[in-house]
Every structure is written in structure tokens, then in C-alpha cells.
């Protein structure tokens, strides 16, 4: 059962809704029916809120009919990773620890999406507390990959990635502390932006590691992603990490050519530091070739070894996450799933001096990267080194966190966008990552849109879902 509405993009739907050619109520009803039919096998949702969604869709329709269109998100269905607060709904973080944890106010990002007229469909699966997964020992099962149900769909924003690939909604939010937006984007063949640190408010989102946490949009296409970021990006004086920087028009450069742009290639991440899967490397080489043929100036750049970023980021993450979880780990260690407990215990014995050495090192790494970026407009590199592994392959899952090039940009705080870059011979998505100067998300969207238009990878969807 596939209808024309299942894989409708946010921007296409917005145009139809604005022109009154698509009813938000019909749209939401169609997606709810698809979710009801298929999500039992894919577990993208922890909690579906159909009544609330239909009420919001009716309200949007009434406003639009009365001539009060609020903007591109008005009447558009979306869903939130279940570490993001929605007033009156439970925020579980996919954990027994937070069962019954009703949010008393919206997160800032929820406020902004609601004010834009978005229609919340429900709360999405995550790895437990955005760190422990995929896990079969939690109150809810892990999300599955719509391209192959037996395969990992990435994480921690697993329900966001799975639901987009399954055609359950056109837009979602995820969070990214060591790659958790970009990993499911890679595994599920969708588009995920980790914006610059401080660009999107973290207030009302369950923290994992304060200085590495980012909230960002996940969509199927680049244009849709830019529209979502436009809605959620702003300065929040209530978030100590938020930066008071003007918000540009993220769609302004979409459709522009890449001729003359200086694009750095961080090839050593996926050829020397870690040997990427040949199909993934081939996809990256093909993308670089395509950009070069379109007139971009390609230049290989060298950053510190991937393992340095990984070590620095993991030490900071472990220390900050343990500070969040210490009390629960002391009092209720058995209420965590096995994977989250093990990953969180990594911070228990860290010394203050080690954490401080890591955050001092972080500045050195940031400066080395800034130096390498001085002569380029954007950089291209790998996100994941491999296509998705089987969800029951513990050995491959264990390496998932080391065979990736996402942590460097949590450490530096630069914006990083992952988009589909083809498919493996077995039909699983491949991906690439674009990295920009701080607060220059618009440049990433420009290059990504060019690539998307040239390749058409985002027009492919899983052929058939299991029901």
C-alpha cells in the first residue's frame, strides 16, 4: 500500500496545502493509516498521538481556509525523537528510568514547530538516552531499517531515520552528540543536518553531553531540511550554549551552481585513518568527481587523525554523560538497558584532570581544523565507513561507533550535513558528509542540493515494507 502522499516532501506538501489542493486532515489521516499498518514491524514510534494530530490538522486547515497561512510548516506532519519535551506528553528517552516522565512545557524547538503550525504525529524511538542501542532489553523494541528490516537503522535518532525512510512523515527532529543525526541519515538514506553548536536551542531536550549536544532536522530531501532548520534556528538566551548570531535564509542558495567553490576532501579519514568499505569509498570518489566536473575546485586537506577526535570526544562525552546519570546509575543500575549502562559507566572512573585535558585538547583540534578550512568553502568526507550491518550482528554493531567520521564535528561544533550517495550492491544506502564553517549551514545546503539534483538518490525509496 503506497499512496502519492507517503513520500511527498515537506516543500511539495507545503505548496499544495497553501494552494488548498491538499487538505492537512487528509494528509495526516493518510500517514496515520500507513503508520498503523506498518510500524508494528519498524518500531519508529514509541508513542503515536493520532487524536492530537488530527485536532492540529483540523485547526491548521481552518486557519489556512480562512487565509491565515503561517508558512511552509503549516499543516505539515512531523515527529520528534523522544528526548524532546512536548507539554503534556511523556518524554521517556526510550528508557525505563523515565517512564511516566510527563513534560510540563514544550522544548524550545517544539514551541517553534508548533508556532509554525506543524502537526505532531508522535514521539520516536531512540537509543536509550541517545547512547544505548540498538537494544532488545528496553520497554520498547528498537527501530528497524526500512531498506532491510534485518539491518541496523543507525542511531541514536533511530526512529527519525526509520520513519522518514518508511514514508511515515516528511520531517523529524533528531539530536547529535557523537553523530546521532548523521548515523541514521547514512543508514536509512535520508538527509540529516547537525547544525553549528549553539545554532538550535537545547532547552527542553534530555541532555547527553552538554558541550557536544546538537538538535537538528532530519528529512528526505535537502530543500525540506533547509525549511525545517529555518523554523528551529534562533538564539535562546535560556540555553547557555546558544549563540546570538543572525539566522540567514537557508534556502537562499538552493539551485546555485558549485562552479568556483573550493571544496576540501578529507580523504584520509576513510582511506588511511580507517579503511572504508570499498563501495562506500567508491561512492565518495564518484561524488568528488561529479563536483569537480561541475567546476568546483577540489583540494585534498589534512586534519588530525580521526582517532584523535574520537578519543577527545569520547572522553568529554563520557564525563559529561556520567554527570547527568550518576545518581540513577547508583540507585537504579538495573533499570538501564545493557548497552546504555555499559556506555555510561565509562565515565564513572574518569579523573577531573583527564576531562580537563580533553577539553583543553579540544581547542587545539578546533584550531587545527579551522586552519585547514581557511582556504575552502566546504569539505566533503565520509559519515559512515560501511553500509548498515545486521541488527543482530553484535560484533559489527560494536564497531559502528569507531568506523565513522562524525565525532570530529561534534568536537569542533561545525555544521555537518549527511545526504544519500547511492546504494550498495545489496541495496543498502551509502552516504556522504559535507562540513562547513561555523554558522554556514547555507553553503552545505547549496552543495548538497546540487548533488541531489545531479544524482536523484533521494527519489529512491524502499520498494515494499513488511506488514
Amino acid at each position, binding site marked *: 500500500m503506497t499512496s502519492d502522499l507517503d513520500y511527498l516532501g515537506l516543500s511539495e506538501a507545503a505548496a499544495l496545502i497553501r494552494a488548498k489542493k491538499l487538505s492537512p486532515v487528509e494528509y495526516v489521516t493518510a500517514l496515520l493509516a500507513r503508520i498503523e499498518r506498518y510500524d508494528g514491524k519498524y518500531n519508529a514510534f514509541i508513542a503515536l498521538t493520532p487524536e492530537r494530530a488530527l485536532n492540529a490538522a483540523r485547526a491548521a486547515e481552518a486557519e489556512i481556509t480562512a487565509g491565515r497561512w503561517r508558512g511552509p510548516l503549516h499543516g505539515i506532519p512531523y515527529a520528534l525523537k523522544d528526548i524532546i519535551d512536548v507539554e503534556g506528553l511523556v518524554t521517556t528517552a526510550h528508557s525505563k528510568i523515565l517512564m511516566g516522565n510527563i513534560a510540563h512545557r514544550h522544548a524550545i524547538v517544539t514551541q517553534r514547530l508548533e508556532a509554525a503550525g506543524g502537526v505532531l504525529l508522535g514521539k520516536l524511538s531512540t537509543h536509550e538516552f541517545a547512547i544505548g542501542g540498538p537494544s532488545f532489553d528496553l520497554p520498547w523494541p528498537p527501530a528497524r531499517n526500512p531498506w532491510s528490516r534485518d539491518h541496523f537503522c543507525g542511531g541514536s535518532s533511530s526512529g527519525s531515520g526509520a520513519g522518514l525512510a518508511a514514508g511515515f512523515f516528511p520531517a523529524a527532529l533528531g539530536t547529535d552528540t557523537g553523530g546521532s543525526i548523521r548515523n541514521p541519515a547514512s543508514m536509512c538514506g535520508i538527509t540529516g543536518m547537525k547544525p553549528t553548536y549553539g545554532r538550535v536551542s537545547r532547552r527542553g531536550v534530555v541532555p547527553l553531553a552538554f*558541550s557536544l549536544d546538537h538538535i537538528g532536522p532530519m528529512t528526505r530531501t535537502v530543500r525540506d531540511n533547509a525549511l525545517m532548520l529555518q523554523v528551529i534556528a534562533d538564539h535562546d*538566551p*535560556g540555553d*547557555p550554549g*546558544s549563540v546570538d548570531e543572525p539566522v540567514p535564509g537557508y534556502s537562499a542558495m538552493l539551485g546555485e551552481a558549485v562552479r568556483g567553490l573550493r571544496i576540501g576532501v578529507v580523504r584520509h579519514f576513510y582511506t588511511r585513518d580507517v579503511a572504508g568499505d570499498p563501495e562506500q569509498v567508491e561512492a565518495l570518489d564518484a561524488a568528488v568527481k561529479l563536483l569537480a566536473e561541475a567546476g568546483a575546485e577540489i583540494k585534498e586537506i589534512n586534519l588530525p587523525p580521526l*582517532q*584523535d577526535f*574520537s*578519543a*577527545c570526544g*569520547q*572522553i568529554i562525552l*563520557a564525563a559529561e554523560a556520567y554527570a547527568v546519570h*550518576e545518581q540513577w*546509575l*547508583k*540507585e*537504579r*543500575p*538495573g533499570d538501564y538497558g*545493557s548497552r546504555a*549502562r*555499559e*556506555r*555510561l*559507566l*565509562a*565515565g*564513572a*572512573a*574518569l579523573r577531573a584532570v*583527564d576531562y*580537563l*585535558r*580533553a*577539553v*583543553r*585538547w*579540544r*581547542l*587545539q583540534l*578546533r584550531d587545527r581544523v579551522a586552519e585547514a578550512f581557511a582556504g575552502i568553502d566546504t569539505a566533503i568526507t565520509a559519515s559512515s565507513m560501511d553500509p548498515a550491518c545486521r541488527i543482530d550482528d553484535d560484533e559489527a554493531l560494536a564497531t559502528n561507533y569507531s568506523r565513522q567520521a562524525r565525532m570530529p564535528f561534534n568536537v569542533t561544533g561545525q555544521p555537518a550535513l549527511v545526504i544519500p550517495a547511492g546504494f550498495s550492491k545489496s541495496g543498502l544506502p551509502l552516504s556522504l558528509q559535507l562540513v562547513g564553517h561555523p554558522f554556514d549551514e547555507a553553503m552545505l545546503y547549496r552543495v548538497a542540493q546540487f548533488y541531489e539534483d545531479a544524482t536523484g538518490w533521494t527519489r529512491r525509496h524502499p520498494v515494499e515494507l513488511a506488514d
Partner: protein
Amino acid sequence: MIEELRDKARALGLDRLTDEHLAQFERATNGMARHLQRLPSGMQPAQEPAHVYRAKGNAP
């Protein structure tokens, strides 16, 4: 061995860990030790960490 681990965990206030949890604690600590080995030495004494205290914050 397990008693050593239990003592180490207890010293950190983690006195409700089961044997299975202690094994996880050991694996996690060993994994972190590999990351710690990469920390650079010889930083200048005045080199500041990435986030520093501000006397006037922007919290509400």
C-alpha cells in the same frame, strides 16, 4: 578479581552493581583507558579549556 572491581565501584558510590554490571564496568573502563592514552601531554600551563567560566552568563 570481581571483588577488586566491586571495591573500585563501591569507592565510586556504585554499590548496587551486579556481577554482570561489574563486568560491563570493567569493559567500559578499559575502553576509556585506550582513549586516555591518546591525550596529548606537554600542554602549556596557561592553555585554557574549551569552555571557561564567565562571570556574567546568559542564563535566564
